[in-house]
């Protein structure tokens, strides 16, 4: 079957190339063809973008799969696989009609049934999807290219959910694959996206190979983010995994690779000195750092002790220690990404200005008994290592006794899932990070969930937050949503669901022979060409 696919692919590619040659070649400003060698941020081990939230899997999926809606670089949701869509006046029934010519990589036509099954699976895993599922949506196939979504209860941001840009993205898969349980990993990688995954060439820990999907029909629009026309200029994309930054840097300088997704900030100055290389900021919204207290155990099951964490916060200190280069970081007193549509200063006065005196006062008022605070200290991720060390200093200055528990990231993942008391293997404080796209608004933001046992690790139980998030997704207009998001922020910071310690951006680096890289939260390979 794979041979037949390859033949079909080659025949299609030849036909496309011939058609392009007969048509006006001058219409293409960019060079067509070639192989792009790309060093990815991590090793691609999991191929199912619904089964995992790992960013590397999401990035892989953007090549292979397509989405009903995309998000452009101004964060507007725009149709992608969808040709036409409509919504009833009461906002309870949506209808979606697919574009003509959409094909899976196995040659079959994309059908409405495929999208229905894909959405059902996604709604079982994703936070936004689960919120949508809680509002009783009924998905039904109307005809081969059309399906409907009828809500049981009001849910405003349906299109935002379907066009959400970060994990878990609702990628479309053939119905037979989407029928896989959401708890099981899919066994086949068949998408309808602009590139095809070459399974035989996949070597976990080394390389991933994608080739152009010759049958892909892009929208006749300029590309922007994951929206617009996904016109592919490359024949092949090879992802390499290079765990050592110095090796990747040398390989980029020597021309053995063309694009390095995430060079450490320390390497940027050297890269910028090389006339053959360039850097680029694909995601200006960046990443947000978190300090998360465990709400289950003393002292942070006490609101005043948690509020001491806000009072002690000095984002500049964290960012200096963790990121180091001022042009790549910024303080941001708020829980929603600064620069995003829901950024606000509501209730964030305490976060904006450090007040150690008040922190000490709050610690006393909390009745803190001097027991050691267990801080999860991740040592193999440089910015988390630095953040933990700053936290130790600030906690000590606020009057806490601190016990730093050093461990690697994998061990940290296991520790953070433990609900046991800190003296029995649990924890009091941990640090993590999220891309801005994942902290953009209450429906995607794990940190503002107050669902107790169902909330993100740290398990804050704040029913008011849950009610506000429900109100947010039921709100019909943007002004109301903004007001509710402000309320969410006020409550989240007052109850100290978590404490943000600033935002930073991450440049990407490439050889100047590479052009057309799009601004987006994930590396995109359409529109890219190589000289």
């Amino acid at each position, binding site marked *: 079957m794979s041979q037949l696919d390859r033949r079909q692919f080659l025949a299609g590619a030849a036909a496309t190339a011939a058609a392009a040659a007969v048509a006006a070649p001058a219409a293409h400003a960019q060079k067509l063809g070639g192989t792009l060698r790309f060093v990815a941020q991590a090793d691609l081990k999991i191929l199912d973008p619904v089964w995992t939230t790992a960013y590397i899997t999401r990035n892989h999926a953007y090549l292979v799969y397509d989405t009903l809606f995309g998000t452009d670089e101004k964060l507007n949701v725009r149709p992608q696989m969808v040709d036409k869509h409509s919504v009833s006046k009461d906002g309870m029934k949506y209808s979606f009609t697919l574009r003509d010519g959409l094909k899976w990589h196995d040659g079959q036509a994309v059908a409405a049934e495929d999208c229905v099954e894909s959405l059902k699976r996604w709604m079982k895993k994703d936070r936004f999807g689960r919120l949508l599922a809680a509002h009783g949506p009924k998905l039904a196939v109307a005809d081969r290219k059309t399906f409907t979504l009828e809500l049981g209860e009001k849910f405003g941001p349906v299109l935002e959910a379907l066009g959400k840009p970060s994990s878990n993205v609702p990628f479309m898969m053939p119905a037979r694959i989407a029928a896989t349980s959401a708890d099981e990993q899919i066994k086949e990688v068949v998408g309808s996206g602009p590139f095809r995954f070459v399974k035989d060439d996949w070597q976990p820990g*080394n390389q991933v190979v994608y080739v152009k999907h010759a049958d892909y029909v892009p929208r006749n629009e300029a590309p922007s983010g994951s929206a617009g026309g996904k016109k592919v200029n490359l024949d092949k994309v090879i992802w390499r995994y290079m765990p050592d930054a110095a090796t990747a840097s040398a390989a980029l300088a020597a021309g053995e690779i063309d694009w390095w997704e995430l060079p450490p900030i320390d390497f940027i100055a050297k890269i910028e000195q090389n006339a053959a290389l360039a850097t680029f900021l694909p995601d200006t919204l960046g990443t947000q750092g978190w300090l998360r207290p465990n709400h289950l155990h003393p002292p942070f099951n006490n609101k005043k002790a948690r509020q001491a964490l806000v009072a002690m916060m000095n984002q500049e200190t964290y960012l200096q220690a963790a990121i180091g280069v001022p042009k790549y970081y910024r303080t941001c007193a708020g829980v929603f990404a600064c620069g995003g549509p829901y950024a606000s200063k509501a209730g964030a006065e305490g976060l904006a200005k450090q007040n150690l005196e008040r922190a000490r006062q709050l610690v006393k008022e909390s009745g803190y008994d001097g027991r050691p605070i267990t801080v999860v200290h991740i040592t193999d991720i440089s910015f988390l290592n630095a953040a933990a060390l700053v936290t130790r200093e600030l906690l000590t200055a606020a009057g806490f006794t601190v016990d730093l528990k050093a461990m690697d990231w994998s061990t940290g993942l296991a520790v953070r*899932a433990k609900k046991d008391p800190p003296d029995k293997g649990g924890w009091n404080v941990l640090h993590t990070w999220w891309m801005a796209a994942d902290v953009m608004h209450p429906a995607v933001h794990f940190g503002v969930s107050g669902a107790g046992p169902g909330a993100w690790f740290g398990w804050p139980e704040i029913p008011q937050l849950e009610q506000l998030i429900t109100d947010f997704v039921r709100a019909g207009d943007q002004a109301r949503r903004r007001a509710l998001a402000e309320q969410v922020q006020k409550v989240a910071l007052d109850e100290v669901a978590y404490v943000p310690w600033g935002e930073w951006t991450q440049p990407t680096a490439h050889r100047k022979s590479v052009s057309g890289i799009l601004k987006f939260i994930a590396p995109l390979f359409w529109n890219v060409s190589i000289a």
Partner: protein
Amino acid sequence: MLAEILRRLVATIPVMVVVALAVFALLHVTPGDPAVIIAGDYATSDDIARIRARLGLDAPFTTQVGLWLGRVVRGDLGTSIFSGLPVSTLIGQRAATTVWLTLFAMLISVGVGVPVGVVAAWRRGSWVDRAVMMFAVSGFSMPTFWLGFILVYIFAITAGWLPVQGYQPLAAGLWPFLSHLILPAVTLSVVYMALIARMTRASMLGVLAEDYIRTAFAKGLAPRGVLIRHALKNASLPVVTIIGIGFALLIGGAVVTESVFALPGLGRLTVDAIVRRDYPVIQGVLLVVSGVYVLLNLVVDVLYVVLDPRIRY
């Protein structure tokens, strides 16, 4: 001799069983949980428990080890928890790189280390001897990753003669294959070159003081013949031992070299699997590598007999 080899081969079975049990036990007392890594960021405790159950990680230790050993006996090393690929496939994808790297490194180590050690012993106390000893001490002292980056800087970035990283199979052509192995193999070999040079020198010094060597020289034999045919052969037992140990150490040492040169070898497969707690991969790779170690020891023992017919088992 054949009977002895067969007996030793059979004796490797309990060794392998003990190794397998030790690896399994060690992994399961190591902190970390693949279910948590798989579950992702928004998993509830129930989600994690469900994944653990699906992976069989919630079963009693004895059940888990029993199932695993049962599969191993049938030649099934299991499936990666993350990629879903068979462990044997993953090992197959990586084995060639590590085998070639190790063989090249050993070839360089022996090809340089033994002659240099012989010459140093023959010219004991001379500047040649001192130079060899200085080289040996330097070779021991240089961190592998540091040497790797220095070689990359000189020969790949500055001179542009060799590639910075990566691996090309022999099928891609002889020069692409060799050019991708030269720097990693040299990097990996330096420590063992130094070790073999020192060991050869020490062993040769002992033999060169023997009466029969003096007799050989007195008979008017050429120095090359005395050194190689009479002295080196008798001095080779400790050298063969160290080469055998060196092979084993090279496989371990390849972890750093493979990372520096982005080579898809068994070392990196193991490290990646450990970082993610991909138990079936770690267990499979360690079992295979342990088997190779045991076989290497057997080969060294057989070589003893070949080199010194007086030895009997």
